[in-house]
């Protein structure tokens, strides 16, 4: 069987209990049906994970998944997905990260590297063309991910690229990250899954080039795409990064503040990219193979450096009522050191702060607006000491421990903490947050795109909002599987058709836009099918009570509400449009051999 261009045609499965390996052939119809990244990862998890396995059980697989575009000169293509069952949600989780690990990993000759089992002692997993080694990680255990990555490269050579966990992953914090080169597969607690396998670093070194079906066409397309990536559609990311959302979101009442008690933050200007870029910016950077360069690195007055993005500043700033930029930068850097997802950390701490305000939690030092308390809480979470041991479980489990109605304002969906988009004033996004397979997630839904462009009344969700959300979800499913960075999306005018053409150049497949649309739907449904197998029910597709019985005022004086019946209507419409029954289950079992095992 000939392997299509862009692919290696196989996955490597490593059981770190004993270091044994298995090579899993990846049939062409699977590759064509799921592409790579999040899509192929979903297929792998469905095939390899025992049904009902606990996320931190040694038998639970964790997959690093590459894609057909990795290693090509196409801008933003050096990305990989990490896919596993989430210890926060108990459902499918995929998180993307970028840079050289993707290229080196794929060039080991595998489209995916799957880790199962549990090492006898803390270990690093080294993979190259010569084979697989488990080596002692005593020297790295306890280090931050960045320190561990550097330590491994110093010890074994600079050609190695490592993805690592921090102390939070070692201690099974349910929202621990896996990091590489300062970027993070951040959401859903994948670092805890790797930590439960006693693996500190997965290091890769590869030299196997992958054939492209039409190299000249790929090179021409890469040049064109690179030129387009310098245009106005990416200017925001290049010049200021996503933090430039913060003041704009504040102006349109969609900046979650003090655990979603407000959608505006009076001190937002203190944290704005417009100001901080002048006073705190120290460097700019980009992932490997990226011509956008969205990374903006700021330093606090104390000298601590942190990559700033909207999500980490929102979560550790307005969400916790903290307005001092130096404390927010310190908190962001602390999350990186510990290996914590900033969104879940900020959300869980903000929930605890509200519990303290309401007298439900006796932690008097943990108050909104107190940056020192925020830092202390992060340290306790990373160490699992004091109240941090409970907060390390995430807001859903913590609210089950505290009880007293605190679940009504725990900011999560399916256990995953909510990103920085207020659902009452962004009602396409409200649907996306509610129904997404990963939980409260902005990147797999992308429905904020519909709310932030002209045409829909963003505070009054309708069936039109649902259809718009489905379109963004489909586009995200393909982008996350090819993989292209989302920040590139604005340069495509006919995305499915353009992506199909690129994929044809790489693979040699005669693929068109309509096939990719079908692929998108397949991937979305495959995620839902996996979740169904793992115990998902329709009640999981919902939003916290806070959003359904409270109102917000816009600057215009208009009031934004999201009545439960409107959310119900939107979810029912989503199910109908997706071919699902009222219970969110497929009406018709798939006859597609690639999805049979899931349905």
């Amino acid at each position, binding site marked *: 069987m000939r392997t299509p261009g862009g692919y290696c045609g196989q996955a490597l499965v490593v059981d770190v209990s004993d270091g044994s390996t298995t090579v899993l052939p990846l049939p062409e119809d699977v590759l064509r049906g799921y592409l790579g990244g999040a899509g192929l990862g979903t297929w792998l998890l469905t095939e390899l994970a025992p049904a009902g396995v606990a996320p931190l059980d040694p038998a639970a697989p964790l997959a690093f998944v590459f894609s057909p575009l990795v290693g090509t000169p196409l801008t933003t293509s050096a990305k990989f997905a990490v896919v596993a069952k989430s210890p926060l949600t108990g459902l499918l989780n995929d998180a993307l990260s970028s840079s050289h690990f993707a290229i080196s990993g794929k060039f080991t000759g595998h489209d995916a590297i799957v880790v199962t089992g549990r090492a006898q002692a803390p270990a690093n997993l080294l993979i190259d063309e010569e084979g697989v080694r488990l080596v002692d990680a005593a020297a790295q255990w306890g280090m931050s991910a960045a320190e561990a990555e550097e330590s491994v490269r110093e010890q074994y050579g600079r050609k190695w690229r490592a993805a690592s966990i921090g102390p939070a992953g070692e201690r099974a914090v349910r929202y621990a990250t896996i990091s590489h080169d300062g970027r993070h597969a951040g959401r859903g607690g994948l670092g805890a899954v790797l930590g439960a396998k006693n693996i500190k670093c997965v290091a890769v070194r590869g030299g196997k080039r992958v054939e492209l079906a039409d190299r000249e066409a790929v090179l021409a397309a890469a040049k064109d795409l690179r030129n387009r990536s310098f245009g106005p559609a990416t*200017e925001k990311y290049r010049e200021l990064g996503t933090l430039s959302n913060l003041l704009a979101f504040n102006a349109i009442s969609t900046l979650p503040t003090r655990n979603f008690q407000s959608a505006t933050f009076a001190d937002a200007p203190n944290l704005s990219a*417009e100001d901080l870029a002048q006073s705190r910016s120290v460097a700019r950077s980009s992932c490997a193979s990226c011509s956008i360069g969205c990374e903006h690195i700021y330093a606090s007055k104390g000298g601590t450096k942190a990559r700033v993005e909207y999500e980490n500043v929102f979560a550790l700033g307005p969400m916790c009522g903290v307005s001092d930029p130096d404390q927010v930068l310190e908190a962001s850097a602390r999350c990186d050191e510990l290996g914590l997802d900033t969104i879940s950390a900020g959300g869980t701490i903000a929930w605890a702060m509200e519990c303290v305000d309401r007298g439900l939690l006796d932690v008097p030092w943990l108050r909104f607006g107190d940056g020192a308390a925020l830092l202390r809480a992060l340290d306790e979470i990373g160490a699992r000491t004091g109240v941090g041991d409970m907060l390390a479980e995430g807001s859903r489990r913590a609210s089950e421990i505290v009880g007293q109605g605190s679940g009504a304002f725990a900011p999560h969906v399916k256990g995953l903490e909510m990103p920085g988009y207020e659902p009452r004033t962004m009602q396409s996004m409200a649907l996306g947050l509610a129904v997404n397979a990963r939980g409260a997630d902005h990147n797999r839904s992308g429905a904020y795109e519909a709310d932030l462009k*002209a045409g829909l009344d963003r505070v009054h969700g309708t*069936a039109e909002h649902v259809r718009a959300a489905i379109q963004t979800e489909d586009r995200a499913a393909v982008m996350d599987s090819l993989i292209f960075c989302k920040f590139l999306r604005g340069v495509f005018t006919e995305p499915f058709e353009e992506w199909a053409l690129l994929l044809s150049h790489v693979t040699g497949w005669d693929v068109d836009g309509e096939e990719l649309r079908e692929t998108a739907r397949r991937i979305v449904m495959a995620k839902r099918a996996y979740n169904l197998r793992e115990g998902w029910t329709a009640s999981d597709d919902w939003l916290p009570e806070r959003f359904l019985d409270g109102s917000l005022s816009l600057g215009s004086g208009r009031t934004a509400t999201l009545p439960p019946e409107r959310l119900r209507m939107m979810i029912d419409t989503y199910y109908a449009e997706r071919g699902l029954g009222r219970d969110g289950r497929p009406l018709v079992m798939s006859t597609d051999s690639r999805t049979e095992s899931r349905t």
Partner: protein
Amino acid sequence: MTYTVYSMNSSAGVVLAGGRSSRMGAPKAALNWHGSTLLRHVTGVVGRAVDGPVIVVRAPDQVLPELDPAVAVQEDPEEGRGPMQGLAVGLSAAAEHAETAFVCSTDLPFLHTAFVRAVLRGFQPDPASGWANPPDVVLPFVGGFRQPMAAGYRTDLAGRVTKLLEEQRLRPAHLFEECAVRQIDDAGFLADPRLAEVDPGLDAVVNVNTPEEYSAAHGRPAPEITVERYGVLATRGGGRGTVRIRAANLADAARQVGLAFDGHIVAAVNGDQIRGDGKLPLLAGDTVSFFSADAGG
């Protein structure tokens, strides 16, 4: 499975575009209004104030200037029967979507969203003012005159208006004789601090019927507004902070602060809807926020 786009407690807008414009000597709907047309301006103002659809009622075969694609157009079945005919058509069309409608004529160049909202608030029960139940009509009584063409109507009045037309009772006063009319006078309107601030003279009801009136209205300066720029729109070219300018619509405002209102920029007016239509009218007291169209991430 289908769902209505608008909930039934929302309000619609009805703009009556028919009429002979005989004193003006040219169709009022198509009169230039700061790079747009008077009809597009008025429908834009009404559209900003209501959360239901905006419906334009035109005379048979009347040619209308370009409108926002979201605006619906209905046609009078019969010409020359005055505003009651358009009212019947407009309310009937609006009834599918809304319980109430703000109804106005095309020739109100200074109509303000604050005025429209003040009228529609008149439908809220107000026992202290003797309105324990909502009225059928909210009728401005401004400057000593009733303003039936800048008023609020329950959409279920459509049948009653049609019946009056069949009886050849063609004046709005005939309708008011038969239903609960809540009049709001100058003092009542100006008790609304927002309206008092942005339209103290209640110019919202000033209409233009002659070339002289139109010329005088058009000669007034554009409304004063505040502009905020965010993200790269603020940091490039020294565009930080807020500025106060006079601008009639979004594209005009963008141009004055050095921005091209193309597909890469959107705006929110007063922190509300995201807008991409450069012809969206701006009004006194507005705050316009410009930011990158790709605002996620």
